């Protein structure tokens, strides 16, 4: 009799406990934690973003194989915002409110990030953004694992001005027509002016997203280049427009030794399928290249090759390629895992606090550190020239990691802005 009562009570209390725990949220559901993946898998940006989705999944597989985060398995929730900026915001809201993800990895273009930013701030959730961008932003809800302008654009232009870069005196700033190229070019124009370049020696050109006919643009570059001293082109063209652009560049025989083109959004992946033999010597500035010789990079590229083969990823299963945003994505996930374990919680405020100062041995061969305050990574800068096989030859690099300056000193008024996220209005009260 007594025994039966005991069993009954035990069952009852277990049931009550279960109900009680169930209502306290994700933690209590025990074995898994959901993570959002918000990258375009179709449309003009799919060329760049699809592999980032796969990189997130690879890292999650790795982490799960080693026991997950705080003993919990990570469950990825993949959505396709289809290169459609308002859809990014919708999908972000769905990830946070319906799927209740603890963190989201996603976005490539700045316009997509600007579109989801209010959602992440309103619902107080975390976004890891893995792509180089124009700066001018620090949100307490975003960690930026790509480069700020001083970690990519400015060093690249300085290199082209140097003797080894060809002492360029005249500049064509060519980009896709949206916020990232416009802002970057504004910063570059101010920077070039500070170096004594006259306005007449700078032209800016923009094309719409998905533009495919670069004949007149290349003709314009040629004309401008022949009208004065050494000319260099800074390309912030994004998405699949890069394929017709580089095809036209090669076909029209614009050689890198005459007019070098340095790109900020073109890596190994974008050049796949382009005949790179006529493009030898054109440049890209990144914080990682697949060709970098470092033990961490060997491990990273091998893992990716094996993963691509196992998962039968189109293109990569035969010719695995890694690139900078993939590296930044990879660093981001591991840093998030470390921060969660340090904070012993998935709470946004606690994880954010624990993020500052996290380190990770990056595939680029350096130890990447998350800045204590400004939500950006300290990164080394590399400048590479395209080789005939579509890889990059590193011709210049910084001695060590560079701290990000999201508020570029070349934009007026930025000197007064704080190098850390502003506190929320309600926190100030």
């Amino acid at each position, binding site marked *: 009799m007594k025994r039966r009562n005991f069993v009954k009570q035990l069952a009852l209390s277990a049931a009550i406990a279960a109900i009680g725990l169930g209502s306290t949220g994700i933690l209590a559901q025990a074995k898994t934690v959901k993570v959002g993946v918000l990258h375009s*898998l*179709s*449309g*003009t940006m*799919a*060329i760049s973003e*699809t592999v980032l989705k796969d990189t997130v999944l690879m890292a999650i597989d790795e982490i799960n194989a080693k026991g997950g985060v705080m003993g919990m398995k990570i469950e990825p929730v993949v959505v*396709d915002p289809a290169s459609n900026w308002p859809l990014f915001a919708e999908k972000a809201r769905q990830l946070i409110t319906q799927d209740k993800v603890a963190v989201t990895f996603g976005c490539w273009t700045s316009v997509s990030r600007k579109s989801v930013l209010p959602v992440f701030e309103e619902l107080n959730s975390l976004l890891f953004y893995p792509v180089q961008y124009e700066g001018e932003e620090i949100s307490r809800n975003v960690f930026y694992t790509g480069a700020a302008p001083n970690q990519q654009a400015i060093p690249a232009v300085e290199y082209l001005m140097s*003797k*080894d*870069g*060809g002492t360029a005196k005249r500049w064509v700033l060519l980009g896709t*027509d949206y916020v990232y190229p416009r802002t970057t070019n504004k910063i570059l124009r101010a920077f070039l002016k500070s170096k004594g370049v006259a306005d007449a020696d700078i032209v800016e*050109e*923009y*094309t*719409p997203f*998905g*533009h*495919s*006919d670069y*004949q*007149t*643009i290349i*003709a*314009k570059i*040629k*004309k401008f*280049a*022949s*009208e*004065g*001293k050494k000319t260099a082109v800074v390309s912030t063209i994004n998405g*699949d427009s890069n*394929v*017709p652009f580089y*095809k036209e560049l*090669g*076909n*029209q*025989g614009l*050689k*890198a*030794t*005459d007019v*070098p083109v340095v790109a900020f959004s073109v890596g190994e992946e974008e050049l*796949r*399928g382009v*005949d790179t033999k*006529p493009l*030898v*010597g054109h*440049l890209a500035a990144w914080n990682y290249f697949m060709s970098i010789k470092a033990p961490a990079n060997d491990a990273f590229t091998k893992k990716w090759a094996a993963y691509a083969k196992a998962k039968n990823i*189109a*293109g990569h299963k035969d010719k695995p390629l890694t690139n900078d945003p993939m590296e930044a994505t990879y660093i981001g996930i591991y840093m998030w895992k470390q921060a969660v374990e340090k904070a012993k919680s998935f709470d946004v405020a606690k994880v954010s606090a624990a993020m500052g100062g996290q380190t990770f041995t990056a595939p680029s061969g350096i130890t990447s550190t998350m800045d204590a305050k400004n939500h950006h990574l300290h990164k080394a800068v590399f400048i590479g*020239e395209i080789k005939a096989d579509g890889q990059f*030859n*590193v*011709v*210049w690099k910084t001695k060590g990691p560079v701290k990000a300056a999201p508020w570029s000193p070349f934009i007026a008024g930025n000197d007064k802005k704080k190098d850390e996220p502003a506190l929320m209005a309600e926190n100030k009260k």
Partner: protein
Amino acid sequence: MRILLILLFFAAAPVLAIDKGAVEKLASGDNDEKIVAIAALLAEGDPEAAAVLAKFAEGEVVVEGKVVEVVVNNRLRSAVTDALAALGLLSPERATRLEAAKALAGGADAVMLPLVKKALEKETDADIKPLLELTAASMEMKGGDKATRIAAIQRLGTSNSPNSRTLLSEAATDADEDIRIAAQKSLREVQGKLAWGERAGLLFAGISLGSILLLAALGLAITYGLMGVINMAHGELIMIGAYTTYVVQVLFRKTNYFDWYLLVAIPASFVVAAAVGMILERVVIRWLYGRPLETLLATWGISLMLIQSVRTIFGAANVQVENPAFMSGGFQAFAGVVLPWSRVVIIVFAALVLFSIYLLLTKTRLGLFVRGVTQNREMAACVGVPTGSVDMWAFGLGSGIAGLAGCALSQIGNVGPDLGQGYIVDSFMVVVFGGVGQLAGTVYAALTLGFANKFLEAMSGAVIAKIVVLVFIIFFIQRRPQGLFAVKGRAVEA
């Protein structure tokens, strides 16, 4: 003989032994030292030095039997290719010399002047000599006495290369007045020639865009223009043609005949797109003749279905279509204007397609039926034209041409599931602008829009150009709803 000549010239050079120090510097010096080492090896001029330089250009230097990998950046590559070209100037082979002279015409370092002059002295070939003279002039104008400089400047005035403009515009602000005046005169001459080249280049760009618009719109001109079917899935038929080309290309990659895959891809893309079009006509559109709104909605739905099925089969990302070797690169047509082969081939292709359609519509029985049905369906049916099957064949023809457009587009642009979306608006614009109901208007409209787009782009940038063209079309259609060319006759209102 060749070595002897160089030796005579560079009497100070050590006898047939390459400078070990210079080779070591190539391997381990900084970039300034490497440049000096390249110049030193060039001065030696013997074949062994040339071999070392050629290896260096590929990123390898052999020091004491060991291969050292070196990073060759643009600056070093430019120096070493110029040096190799300069060595090539003395080759007994005409082709090698011509190649070398062309490479150096792009602007060579003043260090090479003695070598170029040497080559010039014994050069007799009519093609190579002027190139060398220009190269020598471009070096001489920078330094030396005034008379030589002015002579060099005058010689550069006969050139039509963009490099000469760069050099002359520098000299045009020289401190010495005589040089300034000479340079300004030469600069005007060069600029005059280059301006013609630029205009010709723009014209070509316009024709090229026009030919692409024409290919994209020709099929629509038949299905919409002649048959009156508003086919929103036209863009997807283009996309199907492009994917067919991709599939053929993948099959050919395994064989040795990769360069010839287009010969199979062209008929294949026509047949596949035509088949899809005919199925579409039989299954859906046939039931909707005379109901344009329903046709529009139904075909739009079909376009979404086609996009999604391609996405499911081939994946959402773009697929890579590689050009056959003969279609990459280009040729120098005018001063400073390079015409890419891919675009030239597409222009010719568009002309051929246009001509075949013209023949088909005017010289064949099917063409006669199509024209008959277009002009008066009831009357045609009365005299025994099987209008139903004519509709199907005509729709198949229009769809097949869309497939051909896809095949052509795959050679210059991206191939992805959304490919067609980018062309549907342009295609309708061309057909409406040209005037519904006949082909000549489509041709004029495509070329006009191609030119307009390119001229505006050159003036105001790509973004503004697109907007201006759209605004222009809107106003034009308001003033003249029937388009450029109107069909006169009884059936127009039907």
